[in-house]
């Protein structure tokens, strides 16, 4: 098996190249994405329009509603559009198209309409972009029935999960996170699609389960050496798909360890951690050795000042402290 070292953006590019080669129904649209415009601000779509032509790879005006609307309409006619919304905060501009239309057309039509669109979007704190360019909004989408929410953390997962999103018959939002996209990793050249809704056990352990995803996984991994040193055996679960989430894997792990911490970059308040914590408590009440803990950003917009932004992000140190406190 040949393996190539690449970062997540290169993995996205490889997935798009492959999906477009395999299926002529895969089409791509978004702001600045064609080579004429530089192949996307992050370069994730570089080379696609040169290879597959300007009909299948469309640079759009700055019109988020028009982008998602066009993707939906093309999907209703049998295409598999991959739409790029440059940054996740800008999905606010086209939420109507996403959550009133893409997510609901199958149900409202009694199964006649199918909207196999993929929305790729980038986000994440840590780059001092402040309140309107860095929110992790997976909770918004996960709360809406009918849309799958995918949040990979490693380059191989980016490729495998994106391939699955594109082939999935339902709308998927694919969250690319600033904290993950530049970290290189090994990606098999023949990386198969990774099933949606299936978590990955990053590290096995017996004392406590940490459930995380996207860029927060990286910070949880950074916490692992200190926890090992303290003699705590951690099982780290990368959810990969926030909705539908892999209850089976999570519950099996927590049943084994008896302790759970959910850590995410999204704001803690009404965040996805609440759903997971509550499910664990309902299902495993008698087996828990400690209350389930949630770690997330404070109830605040993403701040600009470095000192505030550092405090906003759930640091590896906070993960370590929380897990130690849980062990008593």
């Amino acid at each position, binding site marked *: 098996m040949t393996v190539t070292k690449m970062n997540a953006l290169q993995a996205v590019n490889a997935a798009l190249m492959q999906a477009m080669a395999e299926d002529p129904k895969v*089409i791509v649209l978004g702001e600045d994405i064609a080579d004429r415009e530089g192949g996307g601000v992050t370069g994730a779509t570089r080379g696609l329009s040169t290879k597959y032509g300007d*009909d*299948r790879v*469309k640079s*759009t*005006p700055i*019109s*988020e*509603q*028009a982008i*998602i*609307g*066009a*993707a*939906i*309409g*093309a*999907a*209703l*006619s*049998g*295409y598999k*559009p991959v739409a790029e919304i440059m940054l996740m905060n800008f999905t606010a501009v086209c939420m*109507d*198209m996403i959550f*009133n*239309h893409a997510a609901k*057309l*199958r*149900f*409202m*039509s*009694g*199964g*006649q*309409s*199918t909207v196999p669109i993929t929305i790729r979007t980038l986000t994440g704190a840590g780059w001092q972009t402040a309140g309107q360019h860095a929110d992790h909004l997976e909770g918004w989408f996960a709360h809406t*029935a*009918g849309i*799958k929410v995918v949040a990979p953390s490693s380059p191989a997962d980016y490729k495998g999960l994106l391939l699955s999103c594109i082939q999935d*018959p*339902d709308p998927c939002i694919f969250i690319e996170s600033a904290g993950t996209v530049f970290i290189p990793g090994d990606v098999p050249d023949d990386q198969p699609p990774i099933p949606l809704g299936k978590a990955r056990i990053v590290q096995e352990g017996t004392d406590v389960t940490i459930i995380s995803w996207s860029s927060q996984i990286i910070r949880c991994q950074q916490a692992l050496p200190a926890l090992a040193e303290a003699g705590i055996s951690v099982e780290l679960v990368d959810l990969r798909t926030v909705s539908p989430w892999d209850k089976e894997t999570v519950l099996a792990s927590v049943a084994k360890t008896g302790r759970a911490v959910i850590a995410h970059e999204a704001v803690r308040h009404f965040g996805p951690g609440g759903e997971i914590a509550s499910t664990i408590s309902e299902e495993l009440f008698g087996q828990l050795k400690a209350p389930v803990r949630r770690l997330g950003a404070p109830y605040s917009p993403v701040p600009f000042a470095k000192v505030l932004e550092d405090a906003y992000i759930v640091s590896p140190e906070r993960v370590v402290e929380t897990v130690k406190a849980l062990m008593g």
Partner: protein
Amino acid sequence: MAELSNAPAPSAETLVDIYRRMIRIERNDDAIRKTIRLGRLVMPYYSARGQEVIPSTISALLNNEDTICTIYRGIHDMVAKDMPLRPLWAEIAGRVDGTCKGKGGPMHLTHPETGVMVTTGIVGSSMPIANGLAWAAKLDGSKRVSVAYFGDGASNIGAFHESLNLASVWKLPVIFVCQNNGFAEHTRYENGTSVDFIAKRAIGYGMPGHTVDGNDPLAMYAAAHEAITRAREGEGPTLLECKTFRFHGHVLGDDDKYMTKEEKAAAIEKDPLPAFKAWLIAQGHATEDSLSAMQAQIEAEVEDALEFGLASPPPSVDELRRDVFAEELPA
């Protein structure tokens, strides 16, 4: 009726077909309102009585491959597109034989066989999706066109502006059909819209825009023919502003105090249905008898659909787990 410009004149057969669609809309609308008033049907109803000419004329120029995206006030658009009435009635009644198994209801009917692709309850949302259908038609190399129906109020929503711009830049085979009935819910046109004619907005997006008397089948035919031909020939989108009037309140039960009695009476006085019928007969395109026979047949179809729809059973509760995703959700 208006004089035709340089568009080919519609044949007698086409004109009668437009009338058939109009009367089918009117009889169906009448039956829905009666059935609600009698308490046999519970639904929010946005009557389009008075607006029949617009989709009837456009639909006479479309085929089943051509697609429409319409709105909550769009049952007339579907009936004009020849959606079968039985599943339509079962859907508005929320029954299992409905076009959408009762899960969409009166604001969200879908019927791809007749090209009814999306019905939306969100003002202004028919346009971005109609663009995508048009984009697909272009990618397929087909001659299909896509029609977006919306109201005058919707032309003030951001999605309208984004959609016209994108359609123009991409030269999409789409026709934006504004059914300007003079009101956005309770707001009078001039209190919400910055231009005296919505068609003027087309200039800003580099496409043709026409204001048409939407109650005049000949004027509508000429304008629709030109727009649809343009789209089919790959020349891009057109904005049609079709002036009309709705005879009822925004939603059934609203007391339409925001209209003056005089303007309403004047509009009803000019009801396009009897006027067009008289014209068809005077021109020798049809006879009183032939049109009466047509109407009787349509009334029987509506009556049958109504009874069929109301007799259809409600969907099973399991339907909540189906069609959320392609795969059924676990119990």
